[in-house]
């Protein structure tokens, strides 16, 4: 409660400073709009912003779920199959050298201007950290637990299911948590490259028409969206890690 109070006070102080700066320096509103104007725009354009926020939210959420699921299975495949490791790990490491953001134009070319090129961006951003964090955790199962399971007569599948995966879930959660903050940026960049809907598109549009207040309003909504997403993933991760660390 006290930290929330403190952050609110900090935000209020920051907004006042911003408002004061705009007035004192006499900045034109197409360079830096005062927060009061941004708030007005946020209110009056709420349905427009909400409509676009919904699209971006959907892109990120679908990308998150697909990326997490894909990372989950990919890490298990790598951890259980020597052949898969030999073939796929170099590819995985190599793919890490390509910044996902640089793929945006190609993904738009392949998947079109709609939802799916942005979903793919978010998915790729989620996929790599989740795969590598979960894989690392799967490979670090304490020896003693595996030995115990083997003496009890467990086969490899049951050791995986009853010991290695549950023991590695905190690793999965931390990979997911790490990646979640970047997923919305991926979607936004996808929208900048080519889209007709979404917060990124709206920001670009507002910028082109010198409606900087609308751009700031969209930016604030994006930040809130990211924060909410992060909080949700954090909770999910903590639930997954319950009693495991």
């Amino acid at each position, binding site marked *: 409660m006290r930290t929330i109070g403190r952050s609110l006070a900090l935000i209020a102080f920051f907004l006042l400073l911003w408002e004061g700066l705009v007035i004192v320096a006499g900045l034109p509103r197409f360079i830096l709009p005062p927060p009061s104007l941004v708030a007005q725009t946020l209110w009056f354009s709420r349905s427009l912003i909400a409509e676009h926020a919904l699209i971006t939210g959907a892109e990120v959420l679908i990308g998150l779920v697909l990326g997490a699921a894909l990372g989950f299975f990919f890490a298990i495949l790598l951890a259980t199959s020597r052949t898969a490791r030999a073939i796929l790990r170099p590819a995985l490491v190599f793919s890490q050298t390509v910044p996902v953001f640089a793929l945006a134009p190609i993904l738009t070319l392949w998947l079109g201007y709609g939802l799916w090129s942005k979903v793919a961006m978010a998915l790729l951003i989620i996929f790599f950290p989740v795969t590598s964090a979960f894989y690392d955790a799967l490979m670090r199962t304490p020896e003693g637990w595996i*030995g*115990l399971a083997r003496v009890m*007569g*467990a086969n490899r599948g049951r050791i995986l299911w009853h010991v290695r995966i549950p023991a590695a879930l905190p690793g999965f959660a931390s990979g997911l948590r790490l990646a979640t903050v970047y997923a919305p940026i991926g979607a936004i960049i996808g929208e900048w490259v080519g889209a007709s809907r979404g917060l990124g598109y709206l920001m670009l549009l507002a910028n082109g028409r010198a409606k900087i207040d609308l751009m700031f309003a969209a930016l604030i909504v994006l930040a809130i969206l990211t924060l909410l997403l992060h909080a949700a993933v954090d909770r999910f991760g903590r639930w997954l890690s*319950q*009693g*495991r660390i």
Partner: protein
Amino acid sequence: MTPTLSLNGTAHIGATRIFGPLSMMAPAGAWTCLLGPSGVGKSTILRLFAGLDEGITFDGDYGASDGGPLMPRVAMMAQDDLLLPWLDVMGNVTLGARMRGERPDHTRARDILARVGLADHAAKPPSALSGGQRQRAALARTLMEDRPIVLLDEPFSALDAQTRARMQRLAGEVLRERTVLHITHDAAEAARLGDQILLMSRDRIDAIAPPEGTSPRAPDAEETLRFEAQLMRRLMADA
């Protein structure tokens, strides 16, 4: 049939010789206590018999007297309790069944939990237990496994004197007729439980004749106490 365990040879980990050449035997259906200084390789012997031999190079042979495989006939309680932190005590005690894809016998598990004094703790996570309670949960998990060969690595080391005496009697009763190899640092424990007592050093394992009477003996019987004193003297002399 409960088999006899025997081992004969030298163990290395990497380039380091851990013990041997030496030989030992744990007779069928008897309780064998293995004593020896820390680091001499007692847990290493247990790992060999449990089939967990990664990293150990053994020159010689070891196994069951009937030549059959060890792994499916062994239950083991390691030096660490190895409780899985995401399962409650009941889940840990019935782990073996789940590991084999069998249906866990909760009635029997509750009975064993009651006998180790953890009846009220069945739904707790291991993190909510004391060190001694964790050790008893691990003991319960081992007793749940119905195996002819039972390997125990310092199973009572974290218990207070009264609980220890009770757990020794319980283990002695439940594991009667099985081939038990029990590592301990406690002369009194060996005096109480051993049908055979082995003293291990780097180069040899000596068998010592046990006190009279059948295991588990009364901890305060004169014969047990006298044997304990004699064993203590022997251990001190070796050190």
